[in-house]
């Protein structure tokens, strides 16, 4: 049963993250045992397969990253990223095929250009650009997916929970 050990190790963390989620969403300071919430948009053809490979090869990676499958990284509207931050995500990852390898020929070229701008937009509206990452992970790069998940989780952990600007909190409270 030694193969199952890494999977077991991550389970308590998931449970812990579940308990700690509420205060984070309210913008509370980083409590002990706080776990970041990271929304990952994974392209169906490369990154989703890569994540699958990471799973089937039993590579342990932080459970903080939660994937949303999209047909192509070019499907990801910057609006989705803003919505994720608005709803309390601490980090966002957009991952797709390597440039030139897009299943739909050109999708990730648009992604690349679009998210250079998105990063600047996030910076402008007061979200640390380190909370947002766009990466290229192919279907055969299971270990790379795990490594990226690890890296991003560490970076976001170092930044602490994402706190929404004061005014947006007020409007939400009013609602």
């Amino acid at each position: 049963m030694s193969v199952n050990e890494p999977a077991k190790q991550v389970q308590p963390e998931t449970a812990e993250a579940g308990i700690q989620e509420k205060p984070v969403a309210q913008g509370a300071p980083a409590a002990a045992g706080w776990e970041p919430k990271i929304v990952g948009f994974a392209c169906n053809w490369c990154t989703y397969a890569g994540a699958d490979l990471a799973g089937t090869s039993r590579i342990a990676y932080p459970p903080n990253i939660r994937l949303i499958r999209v047909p192509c990284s070019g499907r990801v509207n910057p609006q989705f990223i803003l919505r994720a931050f608005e709803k309390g995500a601490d980090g966002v990852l957009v991952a797709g095929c390597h440039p030139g390898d897009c299943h739909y020929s050109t999708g990730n070229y648009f992604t690349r250009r679009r998210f250079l701008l998105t990063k600047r937009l996030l910076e402008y509206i007061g979200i640390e650009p380190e909370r947002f990452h766009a990466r290229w992970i192919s279907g055969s790069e299971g270990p790379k997916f795990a490594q990226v998940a690890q890296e991003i989780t560490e970076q976001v952990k170092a930044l602490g929970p994402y706190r929404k600007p004061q005014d947006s909190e007020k409007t939400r409270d009013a609602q």
Partner: protein
Amino acid sequence: MAEKIEGSQSYVFYMDVRTPGKNYEEFYKRATEEYGAKYIRGRVSKVYPQGDKLVVRGEDTLIGRQVEVEADMVVLATAMVAQPDAAEVARRLGFSYDANNFFTEAHPKLRPVETNTGGIFLAGACQGPKDIPDTVAQASAAAAKICALFSKDQMATDPMVSIVDESKCSGCLLCKPICPYKAIDGKKITERVNGKVLERVVATVNSGLCHGCGACTVACRPGALNLKGFSNEQILAEVEALCL
């Protein structure tokens, strides 16, 4: 050569001899054994005219000596290149081509004779350097694909295609150039606004060509384009659920 011109003698300068293909070794064997072609291992340093002949000077690395061959005709083993207007053809028809202007297939292993644009197929050296058997094989495959396309009255496609909400579409057609499959086009619609009949242009998606990548949905400023199965509402709902 010896087959066409009796009594001729051919010399081949080579670095390594490889015959890539089934039974191609026969060609090499026939050339050397039957027709007596001389294979010289080494590079050619110079070709210059002398009288009405061409002198090829090179090195035979197996005996370590310079050799000179007086030849009536010199054939250079140059690289096979694409047609000069290949890129223009690909651009006009809307499928991709590579850095060497050879047309690219939709998938090197799984869709080797199709382009990314539905209904356009590739056969022969336009797709990459090829000899005759390979060309014939690819052409047969392309023909079979076309027959399959025509064998049905209706086309079965993926249900996850883009749809246009005509009431929201402003007709800017920004989605048209972003579509890698040329599936989006403008169409004129007539609508009644305040009792007046107006004609305007809106985008329309050819569901037979659309592969459902969703690039257009992001490019659409009024948010009129949506992708069935991965709609904006569905993805946003997923985002919200994950952030709970």
